[in-house]
């Protein structure tokens, strides 16, 4: 695990170097830091900001570091009970108390590493298209309250999206990029699924995303498990009758991923 963390920290440093730490300045985007010394306290390891009830996880996760901080708590408690640790016992108890302050949603995070793997594959094979789109959606969530006119917003955000995705053809066959985009679409459709759930992104941006997804997966349907998984997940999701918008979005998402004639929702 330490080796994985170290490799990811190397990548993060390279990213900082390539972008002049510009990624760290973006609103709504979080980057962690690998601590070289002792295991860090749980609260520090899971110090992710929440927007609403949704935690914003860092773009690069040091899973080994998080695991170490969780294991350190169990080890410390065992030592206290067995009478072996008299000096760190206040710290352990404080750590135990701090769990109360970590929201439940942060303790139930799943697929963190799988999503990270797709991000890494996207950076390796897709030129970081999926990674940048994720940053865009994270920033957009923070900027949702910005008081621009709707028309100005649309032009600015659509213009940005188009500029970012202008070279999408080069990333079309990147497994990681496709998977990130599909995850993003599933997050948008399925409430409480991930970082991009529980926020109503502007329709014009969702439309642009679905159009991109349609182009990206065109010709890949049925060949890749991650596309089939996404379709399956969407088909199994029922947004409820009260959310007409959710149903419409679900239909549009399915139409984007699979050709309309094959949609059997």
């Amino acid at each position, binding site marked *: 695990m330490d080796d994985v963390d170290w490799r990811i920290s190397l990548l993060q440093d390279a990213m900082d170097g390539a972008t002049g730490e510009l990624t760290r300045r*973006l609103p709504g985007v979080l980057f962690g830091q690998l601590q070289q010394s002792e295991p860090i306290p749980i609260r520090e390891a899971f110090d992710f900001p929440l927007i609403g009830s949704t935690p914003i996880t860092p773009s690069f996760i040091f899973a080994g570091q998080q695991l170490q901080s969780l294991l350190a708590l169990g080890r410390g408690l065992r030592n206290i009970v067995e009478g072996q640790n008299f000096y760190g016992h206040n710290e352990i108890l404080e750590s135990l108390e701090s769990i109360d302050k970590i929201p439940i949603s942060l303790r139930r995070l799943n697929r963190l590493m799988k999503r990270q793997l797709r991000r890494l594959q996207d950076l390796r094979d897709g030129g970081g298209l999926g990674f940048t789109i994720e940053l865009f959606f994270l920033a957009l969530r923070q900027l949702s309250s910005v008081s621009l006119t709707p028309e100005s917003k649309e032009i600015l955000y659509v213009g940005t999206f188009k500029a970012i995705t202008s070279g999408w053809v080069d990333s079309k066959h990147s497994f990681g990029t496709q998977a990130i985009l599909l995850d993003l679409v599933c997050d948008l459709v399925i409430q409480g699924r991930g970082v991009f759930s529980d926020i109503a992104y502007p329709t014009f941006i969702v439309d642009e995303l679905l159009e991109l997804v349609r182009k990206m997966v065109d010709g890949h349907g049925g060949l890749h498990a991650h596309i089939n998984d996404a379709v399956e997940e969407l088909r199994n999701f029922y947004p409820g009758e009260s959310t007409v918008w959710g149903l419409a979005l679900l239909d549009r998402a399915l139409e984007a991923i699979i050709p309309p004639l094959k949609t059997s929702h």
Partner: protein
Amino acid sequence: MRNDDSPEDENNEVDDSGNALWSQYEKTVKSRDKIRIQKLQDDMGGVSIFVCRFDFILSSTVSRGWSLTSFSVQAGLFSAVLSAFVVPKIQDLKVNPADQSVYYQRESVQILAQISQQIASMGMGTQISPNLTHPLPYPTFHPSASDRRVAVYWLIGLIFSLCAAVFAMLVQQWASAFLRPTRRRDSLLKTLWNRTVLYEGVDRLQVIARVVPKFLHLSLILFILGLSDTILNIDTLVGIVTVVPIAICGFYYIFSVVASITEPRWPYQNPLSNEIWSLIHDLPLVLYNSISRRRVVSSGRIEADQGHLATDPKTASRPQDVRAVRWLLDKFNGNDQMDTFVLAIPATFDQEWSRNVWKAVVGEAQSTAPADVQVNPSPGLPHPREGSPVFNFCARVRQMFETYDNEKDSLNDATRKQMQGCVETVACLVFCADVPSSWFGDIGEVGKVLGEVGHNERVNKPLTIRSNPPFAARWTCLSLVAIRQMVMAPGNRVRELAGFAVSGIARFRLDYGAPDVAAFNGAERIDEYLKTAWEHVEYLHRAFEPRNQTRTGEEIRNV
């Protein structure tokens, strides 16, 4: 003229001391009135030069302020020319004494010849006829139709000309009278009340002022008609030679009237254009109102139509707007006002027509140019025409980025504000006008400056987003595009190290098979570890909650 020191004024004294609002109002209306009246007087001054000369002598006294003490009017230019023609023409309308005298002289000669013939007959013994032919009276005078026509033309023309002179003089007098109350030493409020009462009349003043040039035009037209008629009757050849240039000028005059009515973009309107335009537009309205018994108001004058045309986004004259923006870019590029100009650009992107104009300006710059006069920003992107205003402007913004980067350790508020404007301008041009980001220089350098700006302005802090939302949004969008290009740029190790991290995850489970499949299994396993670890920690947490403090040592060890 009112005396300001009269008892009536003293009784109506109004205390307006210290009323800042009225002082401000007075200041505003004074300058506005001055401009309006000055324009009116200038217009009338032009008429005066043509028709007559006014000599206004203004004098100032300490007690009475400004007053008009004397003026004189002298006939001049047009009126004088017209008068010179009219006076002899009037003589043609009555019996000419010279003609009458010639007639009677001829008759006298004829009688004398007859008498002489009779005397000669008597000498020869011939019988003399007692009957003498008496001279005929001078025939009744009838002026020719041409003389009548010409006299009517010129007399009416003279009347119009003199009326124009009188009205011009009166308008100037009235305009001076309007400004007079503000010059007095009345109390502020009284002055303003006077002004308000008089101000309502200024509109009527303008109606009269508009009539004056029309009179002049009519007078001139009548004079030319009369002149042509006269000369054609005297000598056909000379008449034709004279009428031809008059007809050419007349054609252009009529063309200017018709053109300004049919195409409001044309600048050839004259005072008669408005009248004819109003007639064309109002006649159907009058008919419609009389038939339907409704009251639909006319849209006004040609100027209103021109204003509508100029501001209507659908009919906005794109080429003119494009040329205007290009000229602006050219003018401001590199001069002292460049900073102000850069700060002003983002607001122009709030309207659709304005964005379209910018797109057209950029489109022009991207138009094909010979390869030897182009710069090559980056492969696959549109080529800007070197020397085009947009390209030069982008180069200037690039310099501003470089300056900011060099001065990042000693930034003042002005520099920071300027850079915010630069970032917003670049974002607007890139996202709304399709300017390639590479026109602003190497993306790595731009990204570096964006990073500095983001750090100094703390763009990722909610306070910044709230206090300067457009900047935060535009900076973020521009940064995202820069990040995308910087990540893809050849030479950095992101791609290589991403692959290195994937292989690290693949090695986690020591699985055999395709590296990506092994990495997926490794990532899945790590997620499971995290999930399991959290479950255990939560279990421990529940076990050590205060309400469970009654556990025995054995129970705790089991936990």
